[in-house]
């Protein structure tokens, strides 16, 4: 973490208070040329993206619910409901990776990466690059994990249920993008809020 040192004005014998140090640190950020404009643009940009993504999500979810309803209509209500879910131990196949973005700033922001259909046998810490042979294995893993997820609702799976699965996967991708935009505009919001507070002082 970067440390900032407060240099007292000449002639001062008293040590600066912690609050004065923090105010000075914030003023250092505020006085950088173009920083405030950049923050405002970042804020507006990520807010606009968030709102656009929310519209897209509504549309994707609407399609997904329709496909799920069609599958339920063809399979029967008893075949697609939560009573079929057992409570046996099983890890999630689709997870998230969180990284810390912009670690040098006062307020860090989170960045989310979706990891779809990760096999429970896969080594979580593996960062090795994969050859084309292993990439084919990835397709096999994805197909296997998708089939495992569908098998909760029976052996004969109608196309509508498979389509619903794909739609909900698309919705997940949109949601992760929304989470990143949220993180981005909240970060900008906090920085700008600090500017407003400093202006009032």
């Amino acid at each position, binding site marked *: 973490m970067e440390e900032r040192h407060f240099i007292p004005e000449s002639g001062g014998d008293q040590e600066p208070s912690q609050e004065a140090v923090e105010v000075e640190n914030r003023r250092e950020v505020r006085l950088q040329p173009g920083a405030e404009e950049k923050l405002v643009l970042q804020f507006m940009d990520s807010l606009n993206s968030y709102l656009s993504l929310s519209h897209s999500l509504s549309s994707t979810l609407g399609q997904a619910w329709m496909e799920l309803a069609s599958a339920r209509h063809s399979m029967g209500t008893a075949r697609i409901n939560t009573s079929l879910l057992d409570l046996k131990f*099983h890890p999630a196949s689709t997870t998230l990776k969180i990284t810390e973005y912009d670690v040098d700033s006062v307020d860090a922001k*989170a960045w989310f990466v979706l990891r779809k*259909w990760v096999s429970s046998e896969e080594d979580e810490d593996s960062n090795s690059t994969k050859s084309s042979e292993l990439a084919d294995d990835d397709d096999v893993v994805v197909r296997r994990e998708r089939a495992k997820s*569908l098998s909760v609702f029976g052996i004969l799976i109608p196309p509508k249920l498979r389509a619903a699965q794909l739609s909900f996967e698309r919705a997940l991708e949109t*949601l992760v993008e929304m989470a990143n935009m949220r993180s981005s505009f909240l970060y900008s919001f906090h920085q700008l809020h600090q500017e407003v507070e400093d202006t009032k002082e």
Partner: protein
Amino acid sequence: MANRAQIPTKNSALIAMIADEDTVVGFLLAGVGNIDIRRKTNYLIVDSKTTVKQIEDAFKEFTTREDIAIVLISQYVANMIRFLVDSYNKPVPAILEIPSKDHPYDPAHDSVLSRVKYLFSAESVASGRR
């Protein structure tokens, strides 16, 4: 440094859900369902019999678990515990309000967007004082 948000970096964090049956079933199809050894799930299915207390408890549990990165909550469910959702301000897990079949998404009720509106009203007050 004071008040610095701590972001836990993780390789394998979960997505939690507090939503109606169809939404939960759909996302379970997409592979986000997790059940641990103690049979604790990462989702709560909200129906007509679900109490506000159960929703509150689930929200508090999911927002304090270290293995959860995002909490999806149907907006109509979030409205039932609006005070709790609005008072939440950590970066992780991220709370995302989503539409449901019978209740479309309303940006005016989104807690994060409401917080942003406050900034603009504060700005207008500040500029009026100059």
